[in-house]
């Protein structure tokens, strides 16, 4: 592999081939060997491997450089590709004799992984994916594969090219690349995107959560009819806010929340609040 190394007058530069290999190792392997102890550490090691092989001819130097990256690492892997890019830049500088030690690199890695995980979790997993899934479900209504295909294509294009962009930005700009993610303009943009996500989630809840009561009121009408008169889809809204209140204000775990709902469903079925929807309407 050492013949890949591009020797330049001013020093060593990571070859394009090694960069591409490093990026793809991260793109695919960031979490493939996950454990609670070392979450993305091995993903990080394999993505730094082509880089150190490219920068150092000596086997011992390669191993020494690689060992830097054996510290614990975990972040949101899509946006986190920027961190890998940043450390590639640092490793390159170190190979050229700049005074960068293990502690510097690991300090930067540890300092970045938390904030970027926060941004990635809220922006990608909490906003982008739900929006795409919401649109996909709209297109798949009635069982059409169109929505699933839409999601597969759009998400994967965004994920691949987005990660690629983040990786190379990190490599080229170093710490400045991250600055662009946490600066005031980026924060404003992020808040705006989260606003879209929150609104779309409201629409997803209204469209796909359907809770209705089978209770009939004395005098002929149904309780559901009364609810519809107040606000359509009132029950889904109430139960969603109730679950949010349980998890966010009472710190109840999702699993316990589900069990509470099971208890509510059982009691509701016993007292006739809940009935089997289609059977209730057919009767």
């Amino acid at each position, binding site marked *: 592999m050492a013949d890949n190394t591009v020797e330049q007058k001013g020093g060593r530069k990571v070859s394009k081939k090694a960069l591409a290999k490093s990026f793809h190792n991260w793109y*695919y392997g960031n*979490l493939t*060997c*996950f454990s*609670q*102890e070392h*979450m993305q550490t091995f993903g990080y*090691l394999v993505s730094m*491997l082509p880089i150190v092989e490219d920068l150092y001819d000596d086997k*011992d130097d390669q*191993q020494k450089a*690689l*060992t830097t990256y054996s510290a614990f690492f*975990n972040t949101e*892997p*899509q946006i986190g590709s920027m961190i890998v890019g940043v450390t590639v830049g640092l490793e390159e500088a170190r190979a050229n004799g700049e005074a960068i030690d293990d502690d510097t690199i690991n300090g930067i890695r540890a300092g970045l992984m938390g904030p970027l995980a926060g941004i990635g979790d809220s922006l990608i*997993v909490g906003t982008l994916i739900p929006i795409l*899934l*919401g649109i996909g*479900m709209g297109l*798949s209504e*009635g*069982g059409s*594969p169109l*929505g*699933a295909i839409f*999601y597969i294509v759009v998400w*994967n294009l965004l*994920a691949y090219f987005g*990660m690629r962009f983040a990786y190379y930005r990190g490599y080229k700009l170093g710490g400045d690349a991250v600055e662009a993610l946490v600066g005031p*303009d980026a924060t404003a943009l992020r808040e*705006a*995107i*989260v*606003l*879209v996500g*929150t*609104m*779309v*989630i*409201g629409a*997803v809840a209204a469209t*796909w*959560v359907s809770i209705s009561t089978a209770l009939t009121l004395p005098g002929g009408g149904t309780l559901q009819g009364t609810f519809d008169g107040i606000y359509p889809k009132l029950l889904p*809204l109430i139960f*969603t806010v*109730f*679950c949010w209140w*349980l*998890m*966010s204000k009472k710190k109840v775990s*999702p*699993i316990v929340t589900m069990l509470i709902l099971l208890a*509510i469903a059982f009691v509701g*079925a*016993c007292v006739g609040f*809940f009935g*089997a*929807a289609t*059977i209730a309407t057919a009767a």
Partner: protein
Amino acid sequence: MEINVFQAVLLGLFACLASMPGLGGTSIGNYTLGRPLVAGLVVGIILGDVTLGIIVGMAIQVVYIALVTPGGTVSADVRAACYIGIPLAMIAIKGNPALAADPSGADAAALATTLGATCGTLGAILFYGTATVNLAWQAMGWKWLEKGDTHKLYLVDMVLPWISHILCSFIPTFVIVYFGGDMVTTLLNSLPMDGIPMKTLFAVGSLLPCVGIAILLKQVITKATDFLPFFFGFTLAAVMGCNLIACSAIACFFALIKFELSKIESKLEKVGTTGAITASVDDDEEEEDI
């Protein structure tokens, strides 16, 4: 509906690819194949009924619309919800005369949701199982790294985890979908449709998606006014009948306004600190007023 060995093998394979530390990678595995909507299509193709697959997948998808795994803790496992839950729900719906008559109805969706969420919750054990077995490969990895056998790291990260997945993804999925279908069908069909157990099952199925939505809300809502965009989107769909694409378009418009406002705000802050610019801006504005 019968699942043959070949179909069960395929489902097991997809379970290996799709799980959270999955072998399809994060983007393609977890975030694509591990989303119930996509899994509905995949399972539908494998079992030969794409329409039902998508319907079941969508029902389960709402519960897992925002499956965030902060710090590697999970409350649900996607491989179990997708590649055990969806096939079982499809078999159960096909095997029940009342449900098979209306597979796109609310009852079928509720049954799918309950089965999917149950599998997803119990499946968390598969997640922790995989992660624990991976510790063995990582221990080998440290030894190889120490010896300078750096290329073996590929083995640790990309090849050896297949063993973890054969143990914790492939075998459980294969066994449950191959042998469990009949059991689920028999159990469900032995319960009267209008009895309390079935009514509870349908009711909990209709309630569970609220948890998925609420998990998402928990992340974005920090103060009471943060609820307003949620209510706004809810009202657009529930009262005004907007579909998801229309809602997204309206949401983007409001986001644009918010973004522009924040930009003006930060500009004003900057202007406030530098007196010279303040003066010139004031001048401009006065001229315009006149």
